[in-house]
């Protein structure tokens, strides 16, 4: 008997808590925006903050025109699935998905309810099959041409660029292909090494250094960027400059980057979401946007340490990373 009662209690508890939370969700009159962020990460956080700013810029006020239900999956795909299904069950007005796994989960959960999904921080929405249906958003595709041009200006003599990337990241694989296709135009050769896990990154960095590349260039590869400080330790010792792919990387010691500002990317995403909420357009009618603005960020201390000279035309439009 005792056993049945324990089980009954658990079931009852599960039921009641869900009931209360569901009732609470049902009460709100203002449209709810469900934000599903794949994990805690400086770029992704900036993206979310920018998104909220973008909504504000469009004249929408939180609490009055919309409420936010923010969930973070802690880099766990199964949890991203459940978060998306919760949004779908609560019939949120719009889902904002930050990073690819969250976007695929939201897209799948919204499939038969036709809830609009607005994504951000996805490099290749076509590759991720997120380019048709009631979905739109912004892509964080790297400005590869601008980056190659920047490297050429800072290192006129350089021949090879070393790049580390994760083989399982479609974003990284497509970025490598673009680098290889475009490097020739700027007189560079690419030396790329793929890794499968974070523990292999420093080993791969060692072998790039051994191959005597003239510099490193980073992608927005989470696995590699996650251990950037230990890469920088090795490259600084070898006197090889590392170019970042966004401002946060320059802050922690890369010499420079022609990169996107995730806060701006988020704002652009927020502007799209605002159009959908106001009923000006449907997500299915808005093509995804690639960020038009990129900044040139530099870290003067790192540049001095590497004995690089910044030409006047670069100096005219660059921003010191720690002030950005």
């Amino acid at each position: 008997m005792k056993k049945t009662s324990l089980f009954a209690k658990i079931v009852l508890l599960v039921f009641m808590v869900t009931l209360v939370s569901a009732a609470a969700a049902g009460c709100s009159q203002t449209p709810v925006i469900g934000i599903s962020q794949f994990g805690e990460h400086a770029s992704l956080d900036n993206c979310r903050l920018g998104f909220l700013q973008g909504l504000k810029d469009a004249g929408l006020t939180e609490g009055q025109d919309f409420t936010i239900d923010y969930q973070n999956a802690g880099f766990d795909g199964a949890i991203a699935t459940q978060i998306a299904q919760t949004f779908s069950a609560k019939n949120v007005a719009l889902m904002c998905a930050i990073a690819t796994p969250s976007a695929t989960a939201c897209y799948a959960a919204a499939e038969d309810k036709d809830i609009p999904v607005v994504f951000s921080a996805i490099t290749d929405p076509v590759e991720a099959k997120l380019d048709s249906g009631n979905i739109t958003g912004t892509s964080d595709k790297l400005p590869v041409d601008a980056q190659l041009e920047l490297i050429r200006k800072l290192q006129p003599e350089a021949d090879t660029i070393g790049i580390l990337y994760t083989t399982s990241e479609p974003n990284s694989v497509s970025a490598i292909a673009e680098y290889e296709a475009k490097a020739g135009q700027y007189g560079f050769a690419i030396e790329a090494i793929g890794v499968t896990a974070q523990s292999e990154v420093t080993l791969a960095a060692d072998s790039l250094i051994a191959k005597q590349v003239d510099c490193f260039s980073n992608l927005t590869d989470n696995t590699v960027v996650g251990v950037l400080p230990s890469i920088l330790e090795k490259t600084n010792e070898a006197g090889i400059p590392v170019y970042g792919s966004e401002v946060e990387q320059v802050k922690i010691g890369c010499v420079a980057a022609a990169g996107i500002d995730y806060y701006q990317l988020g704002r652009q995403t927020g502007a799209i979401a605002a159009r959908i909420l106001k009923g000006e357009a449907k997500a299915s009618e808005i093509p995804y946007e690639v960020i038009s603005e990129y900044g040139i960020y530099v870290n003067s201390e790192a540049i001095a340490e590497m004995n690089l000279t910044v030409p006047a035309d670069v100096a005219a439009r660059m921003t010191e990373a720690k002030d950005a």
Partner: protein
Amino acid sequence: MNVLLDLAISTLTQGLIYALLSYGVYITYKILDFPDLTVDGSFPLGAAVTAVLLTRGADPYLTLLVAIAIGALAGLVTGLIHVRLHVRDLLAGIITMTALFSINLQIAGSNMTVERAASTIFTAGPVMALLGALPLIYRKLIVSLLIALLGKLVLDVYLKTKNGLLLRAVGDNSVLVTSLAKDKGLVKITGLVIANALVALSGAIVCHEQRAFSSTMGTGQVVFGLATVIIGTTLFRSMGFVKGTTAVLVGSILYKGCIQIAISIGLPANLLKLVTAVLFLGILVFGHARKGGVKAHA
């Protein structure tokens, strides 16, 4: 109340899909007494082959059979490494799991997504003919329920056959098996084959449901499986008439239910795993207090 119903349906669906993985862990861990870490590799293996086949336009139901076969192969490898090469059980699983990480990426190329136009087991012809009028989440629930129950019934029947009884005997008292002039190594291999076939099937259905494969989706699945087996068997310990498979099925649903509650009450993601650990500990301690001793397995 629609919100509540929808939440219950999608949580139940998740529990049912992952229950197949729990059955697999139940066979190796609880019946065979074999801590099989192959699971972290065979789960995404099922999803990887499914994603590739669906993209190539294969019949969705056929992909399930392929996943079962290829999962069985993964189990066979672990079994052979352990039994024939005499590598310890834990290490044999780790070796296969590590190899599978590369193999999965080799199969799929990289993380991949299946386009919405491709039909899945939830949207293909036969299901649409029978249940086409229902919304997708109901179809997902019904299809997963059928597969989870079918898996459970087949497993229950199998465990009652002579072969199935030998499987139990190896876990409980392997000397007895040898004294019956049976090869206990062969029995272990059989168990691993069945277990990993079920795990890969679970991964395949997750791929159908999410339309995506990711190389890291297997991480932590062994822990999930163990948790559900222990939650289920501890809850039903004194109810002898409840089958082990039923117990782990309930365990899987409860586990997903707890995550759902944690999300619904707005707990930060970083705390989700902590909540699960606390729940896990609570059930174990509670079971311990009532029975006056935690079994070696739990």
